[in-house]
């Protein structure tokens, strides 16, 4: 029996030590939720239909070019008004059905379903492309927001997609920021990305301007190469950009036929038309890609690009190609954003909540402790010890899981204080009953615990079930509450059944035979 006790005591001590270690010092180890720290909380929805529409537009342009090439006439290619990702080639030239099928096979890849009714050909985007585009739109938006928020140089921003793979909502949490307008503006702005035609390039300004009599022509400007991305050269560029970031829809790293890294990009229909014209008129010249007035790269236009999709090739490593696509994407918002929720908590309110919360916890704790001490006399000490251990374990768990402490979380702690007493009371009442029936101290304690066990389990289980559902369906701060409840109540079962029992056992086996139990 004594050996048993020793192991149990060691276990309890280990738990105490672990909890203390995990949660001290509290200001560093325990994360505070936004409602206690102050900051901005935004929930926005990515309108992924935009992305689908743009892809449809691209495909339509492509097809139009090809049909024109093959001299197939049609009345109009129109998008379906009621459904994204669907369009119809109406009234195409009769007898050209076979050609049309071939064209579609060749150019539109296998992501569209074709159905022909009379002389109308309808194309519908396949599910996998739809899912892919929607997902991409959200990811890209998430990434762009990250980049933008990075500029603010904030401590620990949180940017999270809600809803798993098919979710289209993003939660942005910025502790310490008070101005949500500014945040919204930064997130929605477009970094200035421009494609400008290069007139000349040189290593210094004088050489650059020798052809022009040492002066910058009126419709041109000099921009420097970005030292990290391009060589430190000077470029004489057309002032007016041919295409800008507003026209960019997608950019990603890929490889060309020789397995060299390249960057593929796609433009909007409008941008595509302009790009087409620019490349058509300027084969052989350099087209500089300028981000925020610094030249990123200036590839040579190798051939006409009719489709608004381009390829930027050059001596890029995989990493450079990645970086370049990141830069290009950083300037591009693939879809529009709708704000669903906007909350700003000032830091003084946060501090206020913290101090009030803790005051309430202490008040609650004191009341319960005093009561337990008075009503159950010395045995009440058991409950007090259990309660304090409870709170320690709770803190340790919160720190370990890196869960944020929120105001509802504090409320949860207070509730746990009240509820955890329950388990102890159940046991003590049973013990009292057994004692009043004349049983010995040892057996009263023993049956008290075993009888109470089932009841404690059942009763606390229901609160835990409720908390689990709350966790499932709740958001943010409420989840903190649910977590606190679940951990707190589980801990209280542990302390009431195991620790309290241990204290009793130690008391009982300690030397002389006890006559009375102070309960």
């Amino acid at each position, binding site marked *: 029996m004594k050996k048993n006790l020793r192991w149990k005591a060691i276990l309890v001590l280990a738990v105490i030590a672990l909890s203390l270690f995990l949660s001290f010092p509290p200001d560093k180890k325990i994360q505070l939720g936004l409602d206690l720290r102050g900051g901005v909380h935004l929930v926005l929805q990515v309108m992924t239909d935009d992305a689908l529409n743009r892809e449809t537009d691209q495909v339509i342009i492509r097809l139009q070019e090809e049909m024109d090439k093959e001299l197939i006439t049609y009345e109009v290619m129109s998008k379906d008004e009621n459904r994204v990702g669907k369009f119809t080639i109406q009234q195409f030239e009769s007898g050209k059905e076979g050609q049309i099928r071939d064209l579609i096979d060749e150019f539109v890849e296998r992501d569209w379903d074709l159905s022909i009714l009379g002389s109308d050909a309808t194309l519908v985007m396949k599910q996998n492309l739809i899912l892919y585009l929607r997902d991409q739109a959200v990811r890209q938006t998430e990434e762009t927001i990250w980049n933008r928020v990075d500029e*603010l*140089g904030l401590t620990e921003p949180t940017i999270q997609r809600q809803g798993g793979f098919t979710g289209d909502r993003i939660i942005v949490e910025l502790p*310490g920021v*008070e101005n949500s307008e500014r945040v919204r503006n930064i997130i929605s702005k477009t970094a200035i990305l421009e494609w400008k035609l290069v007139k000349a390039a040189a290593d210094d300004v004088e050489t650059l301007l020798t052809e022009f009599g040492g002066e910058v022509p009126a419709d041109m400007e000099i921009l420097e190469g970005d030292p990290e991305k391009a060589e430190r050269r000077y470029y004489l560029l057309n002032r007016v950009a041919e295409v800008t970031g507003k026209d960019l829809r997608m950019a990603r790293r890929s490889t060309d036929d020789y397995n060299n890294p390249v960057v593929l990009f796609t433009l909007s229909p409008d941008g595509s038309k302009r790009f087409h014209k620019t490349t058509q008129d300027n084969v052989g010249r350099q087209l500089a890609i300028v981000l925020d007035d610094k030249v990123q790269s200036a590839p040579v236009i190798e051939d006409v690009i009719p489709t608004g999709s381009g390829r930027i090739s050059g001596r890029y490593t995989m990493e450079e190609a990645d970086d370049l696509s990141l830069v290009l994407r950083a300037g591009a918002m693939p879809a529009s954003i*709708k*704000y*669903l*929720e*906007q*909350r*700003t*908590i*000032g*830091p*003084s*309110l946060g*501090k*206020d*909540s913290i101090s*009030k*919360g803790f*005051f*309430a916890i202490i*008040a*609650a704790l004191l*009341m*319960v402790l005093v*009561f337990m001490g008075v009503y159950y006399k010395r045995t009440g000490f058991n409950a007090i010890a259990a309660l304090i251990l409870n709170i320690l374990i709770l803190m340790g768990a919160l720190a370990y899981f890196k869960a944020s402490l929120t*105001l*509802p979380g*504090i*409320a949860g702690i*207070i*509730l746990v204080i*009240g*509820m955890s*007493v*329950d388990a102890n*009371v*159940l046991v003590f*009442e049973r013990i009292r*009953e057994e004692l009043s029936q004349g049983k010995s101290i040892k057996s009263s304690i023993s049956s008290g615990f075993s009888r109470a066990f*089932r*009841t404690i389990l*059942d009763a*606390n*289980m*229901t*609160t835990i*079930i*409720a*908390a*689990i*559902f*709350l966790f*499932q*369906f*709740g*958001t943010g701060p409420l989840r903190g509450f*649910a977590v606190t409840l679940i951990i707190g109540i589980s801990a209280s079962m542990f302390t009431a059944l195991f620790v309290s029992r241990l204290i009793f056992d130690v008391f009982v086996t300690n030397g002389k035979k006890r006559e009375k139990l102070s309960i």
Partner: protein
Amino acid sequence: MRYKLFAFGLSGIFIAAGILNMTVGKKITPGIDFAGGALIQIRFIRPISISELRQSLNVRDLESTKIQEVEKEQREYIIRAMLPEEEAEQELETHAIMAEKIVDLLRSDQDRQAAQSGLKDLNNIDISEIIRLLEPSFPNEAINIAQYVFDTKENDTQKGIIENFDQLPVEDIGPEALELLKEKTFLGSLSIKRRETVGPQVGSDLRRRATLATVWALVGMLVYIGIRFKFAYGVAAIFTLAHDVIITMGIFSFTNREVNLPVIAAILTIVGYSLNDTIVIFDRVRDNIKLLRKHDLSQILDTSINQTLSRTVITSGTTFVTVVALFIFGGTVINDFAFTMMIGVVIGTYSSIYQSCSLLYFWNKIFKPKKGLGK
């Protein structure tokens, strides 16, 4: 058990009153979490009464704004921008604009002039902006100075608003920095402590989730009890719980409070917690049915309740006491939650003692289950 009819009657009145009020009467006011809208908590530099506030906001479109005072010092208020009924489903932007309008109306003229001349409002500023202001003149100490200013502004005495420049700690920040701040900033007449704007999608989303959570939780309970006890107990328990929820909501509807997410959380917690008491009693009943075979059900139920009475009262007492602590000391933000919990705990205990067993009794009488209620 003698009291069962009386208890039923009493509950019946409460339930009827509650349901009537919720449907036809005052109705339950949804907070912005469920209905969408805008909410601002503002602290004023000088005391201002509610009537003065209403006067300032007595403009077209803003008549139905709700104002609630925080902490009776006439300096801090929670203002809820309410759109006229027909336009309730507006997008977030509309609510945000309304909130802006309100803040603008409440600002003093001096504020507006100062802002127009390029000064920054020290009472509504990020710490990073303070740093930016100070950096040119104090490149090395800007961050420290800004921290002092910020901490002073946000401490417990100032609570987010500085009334005059003397309140800034001259010893810590230095007289030159103080002069610079006096030059480049003004002390706004109000400080926005909290601003929340919610669009309609979130509201409908939340309503759906809250309902699902409650329904599934109840189902979960039913299943759990059905397994651990017998079906009859499960039904009695569910009715007891439903009774708790309805009465709590009913009482809630008589107050001026709004239903927000924390309130729903409180209700779910009450559902779980009230079941606690009920289960303890049922547990006794189950035991006693085995032990006291000779007694009839009514006596068994009574005995069980009496045996567990002290325990029930104590635990509900301690929980109640802790929730009261939260209600009194916890501050405005968590107050609705605490209030709901308080009602819930009381009703829950009452129902566990008086209702749950009565329901068992009636079930037994009406349905006469074969094996009785033992297990």
